[in-house]
């Protein structure tokens, strides 16, 4: 019995390690965020928690509200998706995967007008923040994070 266990444990561990190595699919969170300074700021959405300090430091606002978002699980690295709010749309077109991350083409639309277009290599552990247009007293930010 003891000998069988001695053999079973390494084999189960091998299978577990092999299975963990196969997890290739990753999820990209894309958000349209309105940054504002308000008297009673709401708590930061969970998707932005890890970059809350950076956002406050770079942009000088104390509240960040998500007005549109999308979560896309990338399997081939060739997918495209859309994160929309009532007036804005962020189209993301993934154009391949590399060791550094995903090559993305981003297009920010205001209704049907293309305001901004950029190409970026989104690293798996490095968020991308894009400063968009001024909206009222706040600022539109585009945030992409690989979760």
């Amino acid at each position: 019995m003891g000998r069988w266990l001695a053999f079973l444990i390494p084999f189960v561990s091998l299978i577990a390690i092999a299975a963990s190595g196969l997890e290739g699919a990753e999820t990209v969170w894309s958000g349209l965020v309105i940054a504002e300074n308000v008297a009673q700021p709401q708590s930061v959405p969970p998707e932005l928690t890890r970059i809350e300090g950076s956002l406050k430091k770079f942009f000088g606002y104390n509240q960040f509200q998500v007005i549109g978002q999308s979560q896309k699980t990338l399997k081939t690295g060739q997918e495209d998706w859309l994160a929309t709010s009532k007036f804005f749309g962020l189209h993301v077109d993934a154009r391949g995967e590399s060791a550094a991350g995903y090559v993305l083409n981003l297009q920010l639309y205001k209704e049907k007008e293309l305001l901004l277009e950029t190409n970026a290599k989104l690293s798996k552990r490095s968020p991308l923040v894009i400063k968009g247009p001024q909206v009222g007293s706040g600022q539109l930010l585009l945030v992409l994070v690989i979760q």
Partner: protein
Amino acid sequence: MKTFEESWTAWLDGKLSGRELSEFEASLPDKAAAEAEKADARKVGVLLRRELGVSALTNEEFFSHQLRERIRESSVPSGERDAKPSTWWTIPRLLWTGTASLAVFLVLTVFVVRDKNPAEESQYLTQILNARVDPVISPNATVSMFEVKQDRVTVLWTEGLQSLPADYAAK
């Protein structure tokens, strides 16, 4: 009824006689050649008996020989007499060695995987390859980009984009 070979051998040995001898010699196609062969065979037989003759052992010699053999066998240690070619790689040892090798492999694999992840974390930051704004909608807009390695955040900074009313912040 003897075959020709049996009769031939008996004839060479001089063991045929009477009617059997005369019938066999009459059946030989070349009696002179057969006689010559018979003479050669006798010469060979005599030579072999003389050169290879085994001297018979007397009873005393035979007993002495048996006794010496018995003494020689009893003087050799039993371990040497029963020794068989052996190997350290018995089946249980093979199994345990295999298990130990797997365990070492697993430990090394875990260390390699753990060492690899921090390297990946520190190596890459998001890179902005290019950016452009619509010059018609935002003629004075400019873009710049910077990476904050400490926070691991990459920022595309735009200035001069068309400002929009607060209604555009609607979800």
